[in-house]
């Protein structure tokens, strides 16, 4: 692929990117490509290297080695050029305590050199989109953590950008504000924005992201779409059965191959299997032959959270 073509396709391209602090390797030679106009989820346990990677990509700290190309610009040679084209919502709260909500938005737009008339319109739009209109005159210092977070995220949309980095943006938000923010982000992506998103909430990543990378101990251990990650790592499904009579179901089902009993309370049984359809048929056959009436049953595909836990556990092993 030619260089020009590559620039058009990817908002972020990093090769062997690393960061060390003395003997400690925080990020260990990672490679990533983030397609333009997509939402890229970056997942990992605490201390895995997510925030350090984010800080390097946003040019806040220089890498110890490797290459990074952000929006077609060399991240090591021209960090300022990159910062002019990106937006960043950092994990830590950031606010000016003495300013009101609307003044915060207005001043942030001014700092980004947004025209006064455009600033004014954007402030009004964002106050509504982020449900901040009722508290527009309140000072940041007097806001709750969730309100402050909403202002912090809203503020970033005061300026134009091609790529937005969001480091756990929904921390402190209630479920309705969280969903509102995710939907707002989805809308912005439709307009062509690329988003690099870190979160601990796997449901969010599943809801929002086109592609996901999982990082652990400074290394990327999986990259794919949520669906393909599930196909690769989540062939197992969970079968949950409710019966009306107390029975030792674990013993009854012990002969079924590829059937791992996870929980047995006597009336509720949870098993996992990578061949869920055959196993379910076998279970129903055995229960019927033992005259055990089934009250309810469900087959649940493996969640992204289970995949995440399993992938991280395997990488730790």
């Amino acid at each position, binding site marked *: 692929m030619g260089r020009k073509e590559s620039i058009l396709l990817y908002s972020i391209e990093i090769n062997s990117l690393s960061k060390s602090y003395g003997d400690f390797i925080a990020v260990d030679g990672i490679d990533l490509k983030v397609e333009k106009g997509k939402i890229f989820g970056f997942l990992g346990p605490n201390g895995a290297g997510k925030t350090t990677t984010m*800080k390097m990509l946003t040019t806040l700290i220089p890498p110890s080695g490797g290459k990074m190309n952000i929006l077609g610009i060399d991240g090591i040679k021209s960090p300022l050029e990159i910062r*002019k084209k990106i937006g960043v919502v950092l994990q830590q709260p*950031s*606010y000016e305590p*003495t*300013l009101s909500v609307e*003044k915060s938005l207005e001043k942030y737009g001014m*700092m980004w*050199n947004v025209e006064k008339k455009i600033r004014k319109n954007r402030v009004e739009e964002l106050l509504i989109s982020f449900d901040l209109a009722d508290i527009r005159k309140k000072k940041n210092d007097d806001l709750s953590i969730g309100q402050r977070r909403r202002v912090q995220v809203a503020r970033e949309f005061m300026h134009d950008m091609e790529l937005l980095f969001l480091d756990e943006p929904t921390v402190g938000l209630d479920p309705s504000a969280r969903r509102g923010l995710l939907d707002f982000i989805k809308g912005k992506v439709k307009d062509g924005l690329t988003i690099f998103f870190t979160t601990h909430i796997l449901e969010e990543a599943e809801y929002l992201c086109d592609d996901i990378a999982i990082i652990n101990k400074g290394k990327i251990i999986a990259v794919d779409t949520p669906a393909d990650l599930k196909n690769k790592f989540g062939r197992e499904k969970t079968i949950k059965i409710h019966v009306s009579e107390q029975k030792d179901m674990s013993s009854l089902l012990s002969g079924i191959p590829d059937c791992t009993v996870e929980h047995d309370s006597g009336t509720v049984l949870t098993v996992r299997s990578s061949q869920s359809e055959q196993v379910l048929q076998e279970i129903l056959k055995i229960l019927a032959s033992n005259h055990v009436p089934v009250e309810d049953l469900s087959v649940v595909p493996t969640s992204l959270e289970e995949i995440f836990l399993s992938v991280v556990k395997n990488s730790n092993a």
Partner: protein
Amino acid sequence: MHEIIRLVNRNLTISLNMGFVIWQIIFPLIYIFVAGFAYTALIHQVPFGNKTLDYPAFIATGMIGFNIMNSTLISGIIIWNDRRHGMFEQILVGPFTRAQYILSNVYTIGIIGLVSAAMITAVGYPLFFKQVEFNVLTIPLVVFASITGSILFGSIASIISTRLKSSEGFNVVINTVFLFFAFVSTAFYPAQGAPPILSTAFYFNPLTYLVDVVRAGIFGYFNGLVATEMTVLGIGATVLFLVATKLLSKLEL
């Protein structure tokens, strides 16, 4: 609009709330009009160069330097507040360089220092107008003292901001520094007549140099001592500014 102007605009907006402005005027006014007249019974007149000043005129001009120090120590803590509230990192992931951030703070401090000096000159003027001897040569002394004094005290606040991590520690250090600078200086009383240890300590305090140069400018008195004090002030401001810049540019994120 240039990046530095945008940052200065932002710095002024977050620093200049109504409380700050009122405090900046009320605080020195209390000293000028309450202490100035109350202490007149104790200190009638103060020799200054070839003049003898009334105590209210002496303290009113001292308050110009005092207010420059007071306001720039406060505005110098913009960096502290930015670090504490996450804005330092947020600004540095924006379209700004560290150098621009540092310079914007210097300009903000300079502007606040000059405005403070102007405000106190205006309100204190009725007390010292009889003895004022402005001329083309002495007015630049006041401007020089205001700018170098602002940079010097702003740099001190910036250095403290970069070195300390806890709010409690920061407040203790700033208050201690403020008390020493304010009261171990010639802002409130002349060095002549003070116990020798105290009058020597006065000259380890940059506020003494600042108020002496301001008074020299206002009362039209210039001699070798004033020139030396200007040199000390200039060198002090330059060195402290360089140290503050170095520490800020090395501040880990």
